C-alpha cells in the first residue's frame, strides 16, 4: 500500500478538501481586506491570506509526499509573524498620532 493511500486511510481526509479549505480562507481574507476599515482587522485578514497558503502547502505536501511544502509552510509562518509584529507597531504609532483606527481617514497621500 503506497504512502498516500496509507495516509488517506489513516486520516480519511481527501486531498481536495485541503484545496477547498485554502481557497475558502483565501477568499475570506480578500473579502476582509476589501471591507474592513480597522487596521487591526485588515492585518487579521492578511493573516488569513497567508494561512490559506499554508493550508494549501501542507495539503500539497501530503499529495506529493515530500517535505518541501511543510518547510515552506514553516517559513511562511515565521514571515507572517514578523509582518504582523511590524504591522502592529505601525498601527500603534499611527494611533498615537491620530487617535483613530480607520484606514479610510489616512488619505493625506493622494493623486
Amino acid at each position, binding site marked *: 500500500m503506497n504512502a498516500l493511500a496509507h495516509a488517506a486511510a489513516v486520516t480519511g481526509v481527501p486531498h481536495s478538501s485541503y484545496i477547498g479549505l485554502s481557497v475558502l480562507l483565501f477568499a475570506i481574507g480578500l473579502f476582509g481586506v476589501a471591507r474592513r476599515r480597522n487596521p487591526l482587522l485588515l492585518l487579521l485578514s492578511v493573516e488569513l491570506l497567508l494561512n490559506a497558503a499554508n493550508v494549501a502547502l501542507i495539503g500539497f505536501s501530503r499529495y506529493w509526499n515530500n517535505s518541501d511544502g511543510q518547510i515552506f509552510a514553516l517559513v511562511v509562518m515565521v514571515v507572517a509573524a514578523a509582518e504582523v509584529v511590524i504591522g502592529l507597531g505601525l498601527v500603534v504609532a499611527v494611533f498615537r*498620532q491620530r487617535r483613530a483606527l480607520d484606514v479610510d481617514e489616512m488619505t493625506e497621500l493622494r493623486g
Partner: protein
Amino acid sequence: MNTSVLTPFLIVSGAGVLALLLGVLPARRAARMLPTATGIVALVAAIIMSRVQWGGPDETALASNYLSDRFTLLLDSILAVIGIAVLLLAWRESSSADKRGEYAGLILLSVAGMMLVAAAGTTIVLFLGIELFSVSLYILCALETWRSRSLEAGLKYLIVGAVGSGILVYGLALLYGATGTTVLSEMQHALIDGDMLRDPLPIAALTMIVVGLGFKASAVPFHMWTPDVYDGAPTPITAFMATGTKVAAFAAFIRLFSDSLLGMFDDWRLPVAILAAVTVIIGNIAALLQPGMKRMLAYSGVAQAGYLLIGIAAGSVAGVEAVLYYLLAYTAMTMAAFAVVVMREREVLDGDQIGALRGIGRSRPMMGVVLTLAMLSLAGFPPLAGFIGKFMLFGAAVDADLTWLAIVGAVGSMISLGYYLKVVAVAWQSGPPVDDTTYRTPRSVTIVAVVSAAAIVLVALFADPLLTLCSDAAQGLIGTINR
C-alpha cells in the same frame, strides 16, 4: 556544502545586525557615524567578494537553495552599489539622528533580502528574500514618525504589500502543488515532462505569481501603492525603493520566468506582454502634470517597469540581457534624479515640488547638468544610456515577434517626453531663483549625484563591454531548455 559563496549575503546581513547594535551606543561624535560607516564598508566588501568569485564556476549552496552564478554576482554588485548610494544620501540627514542604527541596519538587511532574491534557487528562498527586503522597507518608510505622511506611507505599503505577498505565496504554493518541488531547476522538468500544460493548476499558479511579482515591480493595475508610498517616505528611502525594489522584483521575474517557467512560455507570453503594454501607457500618462518630483518619479518608475516587462515578455536571452542592461542604466539615472531632489529638499521648504527646481541651472549648474542628464536618459534620448537600453529592450521584443509591443513602448517614450522635458525646461529657465540660500549641500549627496550622472554617460559609452557582461550573466541562466 560550499559556504564561501554565501559571503556577500552573510557580510551584508551580518553588518545589518551589527549596525542595529551599534545604534544603541551613546551618541558621541564618532559613534554617530558608526552604523552608516559599517554599512558602507560591508557593502564595499560584498562587491569585492562578488568580483572575486566572478570567474569561477557556478555553485550552489544550502542544498541548492542558494545559487551563486554570474547572474547572482552581477546583481549583488548592483544592489551593493545601490545600498552605498542610499547610505550616502542619508548621511547627516538630521531626521535620522536618533535612529541611525535602525536606518543603516534596516537598509543593510533590505539589501541582503534583495541579494537573496537574486540568488534564489528555490521558491522558499525567493519568498524569504522578498519578504525580508519588503518588511525592512515597511519600517524604513515609516521611520520619520513625527511626520504623519511617513507613517501613512509605511502602513499603506505594509497593508497593500502584505496582500501582494499573500497572493504571491499562494501562487508559489500552487506551483509547488503542480510540480511537487520547490527547487527552481527541477521545476522546468516537471512542467515539461508532465502533462501539466493544460492543467488549471499551473495556470492558476502563474496568474498569482505574475500578480504578486507585478505588485512588487509596480505594474499596472497593481501599482497604486507606488505614488503614495514614494511620496510619503523619506526621500533617500524613496530612492532606495525606486531602484532596489525594481532590481529585486525583476531578478525574481527573471529567475522564475527565464528558468523554471520557460516551458510554459506560450502560456504567459501574451499576458505578460499585455501587462507591459498597459503599464507603459498608463504609467506615462499618469506622470503628466504631477507637480511633485517624488510622485512624478514614482509614476515614471511605473512606466519604466513597463519597459522592463517588455524585455521579460520576449522570453529570450536577448530579452534578459536587455533587462539587465536597462536595470544598470535605470539605477544610474534614477539615483541621479533622486540625488537632486534630496539636495533641493534640504535647501528649500517644499523642495519636492518641480517649481522648486526653477533656475538651478544657473544657481547650481552642476546639479542642473546632473538633472538634465537624468531626465533625458529616462526619456530615452540618444545617445544616453536610457536610449540604448530601450533600443535593446524593444529590439528583443521585435525579435520575438512582439513588434506591436515595441511600438507601444516607443509611443510611451514619446508621451514621457511631456513630463521629463518639463523638468529640464524649469531647471534652465532664467529669472529670479526660488531662494537665495547659502546652505551647502553635504558632500555625500553631491558625490552620489555626480557619480550617478557620470555612470549614465559611461554606461552609454561602454555599452559593448557592459552588454557582454549582461549577456554572460543571462547565459548562465537559460541553461537546459532549447526553444
